[in-house]
């Protein structure tokens, strides 16, 4: 028996080694580098020079707008994605005929076969003056500006992140035992009441997971605001791109990165505590 457990331990260690190494070299180590950089100085020609200073943390206020934009648009974008994704997931999981289910699910994924960059470029033309606004102009609604507005950015976010929200909700609705719904209506509940008291609570794990996936990615988003916001809707991700690739102030960029990580850790742990308290099943671990 002892022999057995020893070889088991070896096996576990062997299987975990690649993951462990990956985490150590691709996550922990870079994070340490960023932490060290965040206390350094901007070299005379840009980049990083050694040193120890807290001035970059003291200067975080210079990017207040980027932080507040991100912390405003990320939750709004997550909420809008949820509003669009839930009915779709509900339809796919509960209403649609089994025969078409797979095909419709594939249709949700199909856009993912093309890079987000290219799809976002397509939106630049659709939302630009010769796209949807020109059609609106034709039917008499003049001078509509769509591109390079907060609305365009939110639309891009919902468009880009929809599948990430649809699938977790779909999975939790699909797993839902349909006899609960029958029982509910047998016992006299209206469809609305059934939805509010049975379906929605049971799909909460999917909702919670979907929201977290979308929110976390949105906090680091830079492509959609850069392309559909015309550089005017500025997220913290854009500030980072700028500090590393244009003004080459790596220490300040690192300080902002560390701050972002801390903000994320706080919000995500608050969020998890909240969802765990509100739902008995909590965040569906099978989806995490």
């Amino acid at each position, binding site marked *: 028996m002892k022999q057995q457990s020893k070889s088991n331990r070896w096996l576990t260690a062997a299987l975990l080694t690649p993951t462990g190494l990956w985490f150590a070299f691709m996550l922990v180590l870079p994070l340490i580098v960023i932490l060290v950089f965040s206390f350094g100085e901007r070299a005379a020609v840009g980049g990083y020079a050694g040193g120890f200073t807290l001035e970059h943390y003291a200067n975080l206020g210079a990017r207040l707008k980027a932080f507040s934009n991100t912390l405003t648009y990320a939750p709004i974008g997550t909420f809008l994605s949820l509003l669009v994704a839930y009915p779709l997931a509900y339809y796919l999981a509960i209403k649609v005929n089994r025969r078409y289910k797979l095909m419709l699910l594939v249709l949700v994924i199909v856009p993912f076969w093309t890079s987000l960059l290219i799809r976002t470029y397509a939106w630049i033309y659709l939302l630009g003056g010769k796209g949807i606004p020109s059609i609106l102009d034709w039917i008499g609604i003049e001078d509509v500006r769509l591109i390079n507005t907060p609305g365009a950015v939110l639309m891009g976010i919902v468009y880009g992140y929809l599948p990430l929200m649809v699938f977790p909700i779909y999975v939790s609705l699909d797993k839902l035992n349909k006899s609960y719904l029958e029982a509910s209506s047998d016992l006299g509940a209206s469809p609305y009441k059934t939805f509010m008291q049975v379906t929605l609570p049971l799909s909460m794990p999917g909702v919670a997971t979907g929201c977290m996936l979308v929110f976390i990615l949105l906090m680091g988003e830079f492509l959609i605001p850069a392309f559909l916001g015309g550089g005017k809707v500025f997220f913290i991700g854009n500030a980072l791109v700028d500090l590393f690739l*244009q003004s080459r102030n790596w220490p300040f960029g690192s300080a902002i990165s560390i701050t972002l990580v801390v903000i994320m850790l706080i919000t995500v742990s608050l969020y998890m505590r909240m969802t765990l308290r509100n739902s008995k099943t909590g965040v569906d671990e099978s989806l995490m």
Partner: protein
Amino acid sequence: MSNNNNDKPITATKFMKEFHRYQKGSISRRQFLGATGLGTAMAVMATAMPALLPRTAFAGELGDRLVFSTWPNYHDQANVDQFTKATGVNVHINAFGSNEEMLAKLQAGGTGWDVFVPTNYTIEEYVKLDLIQELDLSKLPNYDAGSNNPKFAGPATVNGKVYAVPKNWGTTGFIVNSKKITSGPTSWKDFFDVTMNAGSGHTILHDYQLTTIGAALCALGHSFNSVDAKELAAAEALLIESKPHLFAITSDYQPGMRSGDGWMSICWNGDATQLKRDIPEMEYVVATDGGEIWTDFYCIPKGAPHLEAAYAFINNFQDPAVQVSDAQVHGYAPTDARALALQPKSLSSDPILHPAAELMSGLEFGAAQTLTDPIRAEVMASFKSA
């Protein structure tokens, strides 16, 4: 487009023309093979049946790939394709919106670039930072130092060594859609006035510290190149004040101008040529209160992975005929007298390419210190994040 022979690799007349050029020695065997498509045929054969040809086969010497970093709308794709056809080297093009972005990538290392296109003011700094290599001019037979105006080509030589060869020169002014903006702005001061009034919501500024901060500085009566903290603070205030009135902050401003959303933009003169070619109401303005005159160069970064291909590529684009054919598409003037002599009247008499001397008297070449100046860098970054 209307040429029905386009679907054929080459016409009989073109073949004979290329053959004569080859016989006369004005093109190399490789160029001949490329231009006639024989090279491609051989390359295809070699790929399909590698056993047929030894490893040193055609296209083998230069490798099959080249990474080229440049600016948006700066090349005639047909000439790049021609180069690929002639050499078997596939050119992977990256477009950048600022010299600072190029510098950042090179500083971070591991770019994999073989050739890139920096602007005059950056070269000395690249040499100091040991990021670019001295050029072996014997590998650039098409380059003729003597025919390049030293006013433009000067920055290529640092400490007596040549690190770059000129690509094109041009000016940075602004473009106006004269149907939308009828007041005829002539200066950067007008530019910002119109932006914040009649043209509100339709102006594009570059995502590039040199030109965007430079424009604001000129509007305030300062030097395009100022690194004075007070003047830069004033420029930052002007930029932030204008921000709610902007359509976009981007160096790829042609899509926005073409869609009709943008009415005015900071503009390089070649883009102005391209825009005016399709939209006649686009007017290019060299501002009366200053602006930039510049030369762009071909450089090879230290550690370029495909060095031989890099030389072949630069050499190809130093050929005066190629320079002229490129200029006809991108609308930037060559610095090379041989190419200038070859260019058709449509180019040589175009005021966008060759503005009157008195208009250019107020223009400044970008100054080296603007590239690395921390205040300019932060002014730009905080304007964008404001």
